[in-house]
Every structure is written in structure tokens, then in C-alpha cells.
């Protein structure tokens, strides 16, 4: 695991109070609501959640690839201190690729089937870096070698369909790293792959980002991948961050009841349980997010307050959780008294 950078270092990426809306005929859907987090240089931040939690949308909003009519309605995204969320399309395009690389779930759709992978790589390199065509090709070959593609000199002139799924994802990683970006946004990079290939791609991504000094925002639904790869993790639920903190603490001592339920529902490899812990019900639709804490209808420890007031992220041991149960000490005593009285 890479070393966790000191918190004093200026963050590479800073997201503050991000709000993404989808205006529809039946009213405005709030897809991301008050998302705040930061990523330090060289850090790997995992973003985990179930379908519809808004994890992929967070990645898309950061790289400016929200599908219309989705739009950033409030908040800001800063890369190296500079705001990038309101840049015009062309300026954002220059940043994408150069400063932020992207890896998507399906390696077949993120490569152009009509161009050789060599052309796609050299094009990316030459768009962002002032190098000659020969130098770009040399770099492309070196990148393919680094990503573990055998016979890179020959395979560089082949088309995407001539590669297997795992090899294609290696090409996509090479493409994302081509212009030496500071940040890689990887959206479910291993979900379409078999387990043995998944393990190869994860260790490759981890090693290369460390070697190139790139920070990673890794979006996935797989807690196992998060545990293997990340320094910190943000758990999302219904468009909000439920809990964020160092991976080890979130997994072993989760503070938010949703994280607790999520961890309990994963079948473990090292213990035998007759039944899995289950969270009753399912995630609310965007059209009907409950008031107060979005998790309150499914929460086993729900209190009256949870139905009325929305909790902000609050310090809970080593992590921060958006839950009234973890309110700071002074307030907790009052709350406990109120709870006893009830």
C-alpha cells in the first residue's frame, strides 16, 4: 500500500458542496446532494456504493462528462486550487487527459474500434505533450510494455478487437496514463472482467499510479477491490456521502449503520455464518428521497431526529459519518438522555 500523504499537503482535488441536478418534466431530481471530499497528491480514494448511489455521477461531474440534462447546480470542483467545474468545454478538454485521466468500466466502448491502439495512444500523447511523432510512438510502446502487454512493438499496430477483455483494459490504462496526468478517475475498471483478470488489473493500476505519482479516484461497488487498493474510502448512499475515512477503519470499525449493514451483507471468505446480515428494503428512488437522513426508513437504529433533520458528516473516531449517532461528545450526552426519556 502506498504511504498516506500528510494531511497538511495541499489537496490535489477538492470537491466542495457539489450538487448535481437532473431537470425533468416531473420536477428536478437531486442526484448528488452536498458532496464534499478531497484527494491528496498520490492518494487512492475509493468511492463505494450500490447502484444508484451516485458514485459514477460523482466521477462524471469531476471530469465534466455529465450527460445532459444533468448539470452541476451548486458547489465547486478545484484541481490544484483552480476551479474546473465552470470551465468552457474546450478548456476542460485540455485538462481532461492532460491533468485528469479516465478509465471506464467497459474497455470495448472506451476505445475507438476503427483506429489502431497505437494511433489512439500517440494522438493522446501528441495532443497534450510537445513531442515528435517518433517520440510519441516510443512512449506509446513503453506504456504498453509497462502495462504488461506482451510483444508491444507488434501489438501497437493492432485494432481493439484483436485484444482480449483484460488486454483491452490494459490499453485503456496506458491511454489514461499517456499524458502523465495528476489524477486518474477510474469508474468500475474491473467490473466487466473475470476474477483472475481483475486481480491482475488491480495490482497493475496500483503499481503504475504509484510509479507515475498519480492520485486515483476509484469508483466501484466491490468492497474487496476497495480494501486491496485504496488509502481512504467514501461510502455513498442516495446521492450523499454516508461515511468517509481511512479504508482500514471504515471496514473494521464502521460508524454509519449503512456501512455496518453493507459490510455485514458481504459473504466473507474467512468466517462461517449461517445467515448474512441484511438491510431491509432497498435504496430510495431519486424521486422519493426521505426527509432527514436518507437512510432512516431502513436504519435499525433510527431515532425521531433522523426523520426530521439531515445529519452532516461528523467526526466518528478515525472516520467521519453523516449520522446522528456519532454526534460530538457533549451533544451525545443530551441525546442519550433524550433517548432514555423516550
Amino acid at each position: 500500500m502506498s504511504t498516506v500523504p500528510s494531511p497538511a499537503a495541499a489537496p490535489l482535488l477538492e470537491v466542495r458542496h457539489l450538487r448535481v441536478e437532473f431537470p425533468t418534466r416531473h420536477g428536478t431530481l437531486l442526484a448528488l446532494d452536498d458532496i464534499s471530499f478531497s484527494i491528496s497528491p498520490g492518494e487512492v480514494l475509493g468511492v463505494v456504493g450500490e447502484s444508484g448511489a451516485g458514485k459514477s455521477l460523482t466521477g462524471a461531474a469531476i471530469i465534466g462528462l455529465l450527460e445532459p440534462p444533468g448539470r452541476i447546480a451548486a458547489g465547486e470542483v478545484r484541481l490544484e486550487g483552480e476551479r474546473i467545474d465552470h470551465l468552457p468545454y474546450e478548456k476542460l478538454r485540455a485538462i481532461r487527459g492532460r491533468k485528469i485521466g479516465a478509465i471506464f468500466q467497459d474497455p470495448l466502448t472506451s476505445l475507438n474500434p476503427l483506429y489502431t491502439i497505437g494511433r489512439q495512444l500517440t494522438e493522446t500523447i501528441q495532443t497534450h505533450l510537445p513531442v515528435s511523432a517518433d517520440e510519441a510512438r516510443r512512449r506509446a510502446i513503453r506504456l504498453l510494455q509497462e502495462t504488461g502487454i506482451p510483444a508491444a512493438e507488434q501489438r501497437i499496430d493492432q485494432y481493439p478487437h484483436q485484444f482480449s477483455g483484460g488486454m483491452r483494459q490494459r490499453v485503456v490504462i496506458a491511454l489514461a496514463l499517456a499524458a502523465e496526468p495528476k489524477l486518474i478517475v477510474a469508474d468500475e475498471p474491473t467490473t466487466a472482467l473475470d476474477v483472475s483478470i481483475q486481480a491482475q488489473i488491480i495490482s497493475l493500476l496500483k503499481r503504475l499510479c504509484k510509479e507515475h505519482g498519480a492520485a486515483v479516484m476509484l469508483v466501484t461497488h466491490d468492497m474487496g477491490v476497495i480494501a486491496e487498493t485504496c488509502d481512504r474510502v467514501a461510502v455513498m448512499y442516495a446521492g450523499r456521502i454516508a461515511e468517509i475515512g481511512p479504508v482500514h477503519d471504515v471496514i473494521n470499525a464502521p460508524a454509519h449503520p449503512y456501512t455496518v449493514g453493507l459490510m455485514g451483507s458481504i459473504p466473507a471468505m474467512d468466517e462461517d455464518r449461517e445467515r448474512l446480515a441484511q438491510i431491509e428494503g432497498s435504496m430510495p428512488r431519486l424521486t422519493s428521497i426521505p426527509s432527514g437522513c436518507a437512510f432512516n426508513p431502513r436504519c435499525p437504529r433510527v431515532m425521531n431526529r433522523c426523520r426530521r433533520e439531515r445529519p452532516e458528516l461528523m467526526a466518528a473516531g478515525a472516520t467521519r459519518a453523516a449520522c446522528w449517532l456519532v454526534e460530538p461528545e457533549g451533544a451525545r450526552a443530551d441525546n442519550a438522555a433524550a433517548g432514555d426519556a423516550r
Partner: protein
Amino acid sequence: MSAPLVEVRDLAKVFDVSAPWLNRVVERKPRQFVHAVDGVSFTIAQGRTLALVGESGCGKSTVARLLVGLYAPTRGEVLFGGQRTAELAGAELRTLRRRMQMIFQDPYASLNPRWKVLQIVGEPLAEHGLVSGEAALRARVGELLSSVGLAAADCEKFPHQFSGGQRQRISIARALATQPEFLVCDEPTSALDVSVQAQVLNIMKDLQKSRGLTYLFISHNLAVVRHVADEVGVMYLGRLVELSPKPELFARPRHPYTRMLLDAIPDIHMTGRARTPVQGEVPNPLNPPGGCAFHPRCPHANARCSAERPALIEFKGVRVACHAVEEGRI
């Protein structure tokens, strides 16, 4: 042990994937065949769960379809309750179909979007003549829905009104309608989120206990298999490479491929276990390697492995198809 409920002997399925006739003639392309399943044998005892695991293209779903009769086997036979299923016809075949049912992977594709839940779950009941009259049908569908944790009133809804996990419950209710003894579950939770997967797995376990069901459980997720199975078969390129009782397989995996699969699972509690780097990819099933199909990726392969195909042999209570294990090299 009692006689097995399900017995599979040397089952094989070959698919013809040749180019169309004219292309073969004009472009001189040869005929091509995929041996999707190649000599698979196993038994499942009453009330037990056999899980088949493997990566994409290893033939596990084909085995499931062969078992329920969605494909006809090229070779080998399936015995259900001691009867050869291929020999049955007419009323006997209908009885057999009532006794085995299937749950599919994708709950979005396996339910007719234009039917109400009442029709979906009621169809097998009507088809097999198990209930007569509208009132009895409604009562029975209501019972089935409540047995999987849905409300009886849900029978008036359409599939699109349900979430993925709820749809998979409808699939389970439909499969249970004919009171089968044997359920073939093809990746029943792969399309679901983990918290919903936990709900469905718990329901399946409860139903197995209360109804004495026998499961064939197909999955690529070893953690899920470890949770549900009594016995585990590991498949690679159409063949069983290891067949063991669950505790044995996870405590002492024998076949190098099984070891590799177990090693590839990300470790959620980060116990710092040493991991052998996984080598290579699954070969093209159109042109599988000779000898043991796993030999190009195997760290223990030698000349014999590339020349001679290992048979599945009994070895200290487990069955393994590996020369290295047989010779005591690993």
C-alpha cells in the same frame, strides 16, 4: 448416504459455430466446434447444494441448461431420481419438468414485462393443472409471494414496478410454484447489489431448509459459493478440474487453478496474506490447449501436462484432475 437425487454421467455438449455453408465453400473456411462441456460427471444428494464455479466461458451455464433440458446433450446422460431424463416422454416428462425448475441470472430479462405478477407466477400452476379456478389461483400465488417476502397484493403489479431484488424474488416464487424438489440457479445474485444479494441468499437458504430443496448453484463468486454450497465443483474450459466438499476445497485447494481462483479474490480484511501473482488469461475455447487445458498458465506444468489430459481421480476424499497432484509434486 442415500441415493443421489441428481446424477450426471459424462455429460458433453458441442456447439457448431461454423461459418454459414456458402462462406465455408467460397472462403474455404473449415467447420468449427466449441466443446462447451466436455465429460462432466457429478451427483447431488437430496437437500444438498452443489455449486459450480469458474470464469466466463468455462461451461457452467451450459451444464445448468443441459440439466433442465434446455439443451440436448451431445454425449452422456442425466439421471433424476434414478430415471434417465432423455428416455422420458409425455406425461412422465411433464412430471419431471414439474419436479425441476430454474432461476435465471437477469431478473430484468427473465420476466415478461407485459404480464402481471399473477400471470407470471400463475403460469406454471395453470400449465401443470395444479389449481382450478381464479380464486384458488390467486390464493396460491399470494401464498408463494409471501413465502419469498413479497405481499400477496403485489400480484396485480407489473415487473417494472419492482426493484432488481424484488424481481429475483418473483423469479423464485415462479420457480417454487410447481413445488419442485430441485432448483437450478444460474448466477441468481450476480446482477444484484450486495445488500440485496444478502436478502436473496438468505431467502434461498430458508426455503431450502423449510422445503428440503436441492440446489445446483452456478456462480463465479467464490465468496457466495462458500456461503451457500455443501459441495463445490470447479470448472475450466468445459471440464471439472476439482470436485470437493466445501470445507475441504476452501481449506486445502488441490488443483492449481482452484488455488489461483482463491488467491485472486480481493482480501476484504487485509490480513496481509501473500498472493501469488495470477498468470495469463483463459484460452480461446475454439482452440483449447492440448493435454491439461490449464497447463499454459500453470506454475507446476511439465511435459506430461501438455501431452496427456488428466482424468478426474479420487484423492484423499476429493476428486482432482491434475497430474502434479496425482504424482505428489504439489
